[in-house]
């Protein structure tokens, strides 16, 4: 399964990418929202794992734009974020997210969590 990881922190990128590859995903990485949107259109993944807090364009804005574009609207989005407050979770789900994984995450469980949220 092809996954796009959208995450600005290089160490989270490093660990999450290796964890997801270990779980059998093909992983592309985008370090910011605009790059992610470009990659989504040029090489659509089957799922997006999206950081919430990023400079310039945050995760919710990326999700909103992705869902507003008919060519990318059906791609499941899972937020990966240290924001665990209920209001933030509700906001993410209201944007059409398929799920929410809270940081710090368990690298050994990350792939399984993504698959469970996709029902696969």
């Amino acid at each position, binding site marked *: 399964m092809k996954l796009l990881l959208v995450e600005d*922190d290089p*160490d*989270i990128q490093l*660990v999450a990418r290796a964890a997801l590859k*270990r779980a059998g995903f093909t992983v592309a990485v985008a370090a910011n929202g605009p790059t992610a949107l470009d990659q989504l259109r040029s090489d659509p993944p089957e799922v997006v794992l999206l950081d919430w807090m990023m400079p310039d364009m945050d995760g919710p804005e990326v999700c909103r734009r992705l869902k507003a574009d008919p060519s990318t609207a059906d791609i499941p989005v899972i937020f990966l974020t*240290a924001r665990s407050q209920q209001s933030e979770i509700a906001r993410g789900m209201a944007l059409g997210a398929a799920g929410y994984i809270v*940081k710090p995450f368990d690298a050994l469980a990350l792939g399984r969590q993504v698959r469970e949220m996709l029902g696969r």
Partner: protein
Amino acid sequence: MDLTHETHPDDLDTALEHARTRFLGTFGETCDAVDQLIDAAQHDPAGPARAQLASVLHKVGGLGGSIGFPSVSGAAREFEDVVRDAPPGPIDAAAARLLLDALRQALRRDLAS
């Protein structure tokens, strides 16, 4: 350890080791930056320092526990919540420095476990 995108290890154990090494290698600088931001937030409460402080703590909180430093994540998140929930105005620098000390102690706890 200098890592470039071209040298992203595919192996999870290697990736974790690289991330831990870098985290430990920069933790002192991170704490120094937090200390400076506490000063800045106290002396210029309307400036960007408070938001920058919360952002640094947010990153530490999200990363630490993901790579084997759970106490650091807990301490960083508690500190971040205090910063974000504080009323407008000068930050309580003394209280913030206690939380910074707790962050440093958290790393010692994680390294000892």
